[in-house]
């Protein structure tokens, strides 16, 4: 292994890793900013109700609050499994 390979194969510096992780988490935090506090609870309760009838994945329920001008719209999307349990 030549000396240049040694330099090339050096792992990424930790500060760069920190920055990349933070850019993602901060973007995510900012996306959640301004959404009402009840959204996470609403999601959990909705999931419970849906799972009484259909065995969906915990990640299958998406609740989004969207703003269009003056109007706020609560968007609910549930991904049903391919073969629902009978």
């Amino acid at each position: 292994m030549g000396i240049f390979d040694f330099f090339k194969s050096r792992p990424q510096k930790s500060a760069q890793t920190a920055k990349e992780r933070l850019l993602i988490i901060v973007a995510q935090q900012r996306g959640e900013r301004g959404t009402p506090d009840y959204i996470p609870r609403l999601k959990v309760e909705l999931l419970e109700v849906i799972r009484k009838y259909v065995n969906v994945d915990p990640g299958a329920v998406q609740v989004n609050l969207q703003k269009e001008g003056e109007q706020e719209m609560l968007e609910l999307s549930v991904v049903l499994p391919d073969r629902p349990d009978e």
Partner: protein
Amino acid sequence: MSEVIVVTSGKGGVGKTTSSASIACGYARRGKKVAVVDFDIGLRNLDLIMGCERRVVYDFVNVINGDCSLKQALIKDKRFDNLSVLAASQTRDKDALTQDGVERVLKELRGEFEIIICDSPAGIERGAHLAMYYADRAVVVVNPEVSSVRDSDRVLGLLASKTNRAEKGDGSIAEHLLLTRYSPERVSTGDMMSVSDVEEILGLKVIGVIPESQSVLAASNAGVPVILDEASEAGQAYDDAVARMCGDDRPMRFTELKKKGLLNRLFGGS
């Protein structure tokens, strides 16, 4: 006109109290009438950093409860006539700080002082909330470290929504980022995020960068805010930060690695 400035961070141990004390002294040295208020109820510490712990008779909660007048509770700084400290109470009662009480005391302080610095407790609970609620300006203290940066983003979100100004629509609070415990050496080796990394992540320019320095500990040991240690880099960096908060234009110092090469030592002008 008076101005209420909150010094906050979310995360603990990043230098809020050190910064509050130094910023308060910085304004006082510029001739402003300044009060600095400790909002960390139950964990009073600003008095120690200011070096007036033995002169605390009444505190913030005493004033709120009407046990004494504001004047009785304010501790005059020995170094600056125009600087006063309002100590936090050591009570364990979480509800000692009421919104009404805080509003009343701040209103009275606004009548007496030009600059009121609110030293926030860590976290985002009651004390921290009330420290920022009536602020006109905020200094968010952040370390170049993942948890501190994330928490300061949370706090920036709260400043934009959960303050009197935000709720009343009186225009937003001016936000300043103060980067502390910065080590140019570690940045140069890629082990610490740089000033521009933090600025890019948070989308905000820094008002000051305080280098990691032995003199910060020495200053708190002595009860003399580090800004008064004019020989220290940290002290000078705090002075720069206050100058910028007052609208002066000062270049950043102590953010680059000092070059120690022979040529540099022989020919380096500055």
